[in-house]
């Protein structure tokens, strides 16, 4: 039963997540909320592991969530659920490739879908910020975890504005943050 549910949940994710791996995030948070198979905090760890291991991040996250929720078989079914709608849709679209790309309505729908997808990923980001940078239960400045805020500022500067580090793979920053977390006892 759990396996069927996992397949179905990820089928929905694969069908409605538009814009690649990170676009599955809002669906995963929604899933954590509704099913209780995993927590939002666990999900943040899964994102980090998925970014740092080989494979497309969206596929890795599905496999990880599936594994945590239902063991090896859960991992397989979650991943199959995620890719099944892709296979179906792409095979259909491939049949009339050109007219799909140039279709006015398809383009118009994507004009709306792209900002919506961006907004949903941003909102998932807010959830991670709340759990990583703020203490639960406090308000105002007392709620800010200053050690974490300082680290986030450093990583932000390194990934956006410092020329030599900007181009580095995310795994470098993930490992760096893990080391900082251990040394400064986050």
């Amino acid at each position, binding site marked *: 039963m759990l396996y069927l549910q996992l397949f179905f949940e990820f089928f929905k994710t694969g069908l409605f997540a538009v814009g690649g791996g990170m676009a599955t995030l809002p669906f995963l948070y929604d899933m954590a909320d509704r099913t209780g198979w995993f927590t939002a905090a666990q999900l943040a760890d899964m994102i980090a592991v998925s970014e740092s291991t080989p494979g497309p991040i969206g596929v890795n996250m599905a496999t990880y969530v599936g594994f945590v929720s239902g063991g090896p078989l859960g991992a397989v079914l979650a991943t199959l659920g995620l890719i099944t709608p*892709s296979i179906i849709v792409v095979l259909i679209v491939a049949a009339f490739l050109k007219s799909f790309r140039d279709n006015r309505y398809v383009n118009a729908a994507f004009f709306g879908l792209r900002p919506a997808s961006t*907004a949903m*990923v941003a*909102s998932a*980001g807010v959830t991670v910020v709340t759990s*990583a940078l703020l203490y639960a239960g406090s308000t105002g400045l007392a709620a800010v975890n200053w050690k974490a805020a300082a680290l986030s500022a450093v990583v932000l500067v390194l990934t956006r504005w410092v020329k030599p580090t900007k181009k580095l793979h995310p795994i470098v920053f*993930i490992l760096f943050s*893990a080391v900082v*977390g251990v040394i400064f006892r986050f």
Partner: protein
Amino acid sequence: MKELWTLFITFAKVGVMTFGGGYAMLPILQREVVEDKGWATDEELTDYFAIGQCTPGIIAVNTATFIGQKQKGILGGIFATLGLVFPSLLIISALAGVIDAFSHLVWVQHAFAGVRVCVCVLIFNAVLKLWKGAIKDIWSGLIFAVIFAASVFADLSPIIYVVVAAVAGILIKTLEVKK
């Protein structure tokens, strides 16, 4: 059969060599699919990628299905896609077990607390990248603002937002043409 197996293996290789997904996969596909196997030209690959972005699902998965079906029809699409996700299944399942076994250690918890901070920044950077391709004018800005506010403050399924945004896009574009 041999060709299906070749598709599976080739995309398994692409899967192993892709870190992150999406655009990170493009140079690897260029080498494997265009230069090594000659399954597609550079232009075709760019086309598949564009379609992969405007069909639902993971871009990497969509692109793999596309190239597979071009080579060997429906079965080809399926084998290429299964090949792509195969390494993820092995690697993540192995890792998840290991991480679970060590998660009670204090220093592992500190490490993941640090990593979570980094994930904030990574998501922020991903949003900025998406923003560039998505928010082009006042209308797309408005859709962003509404969906963002709704998904932060309301507790609705993301499916609703996706459907509403697609309909909004079609309405806005249709009205613009009429004007």
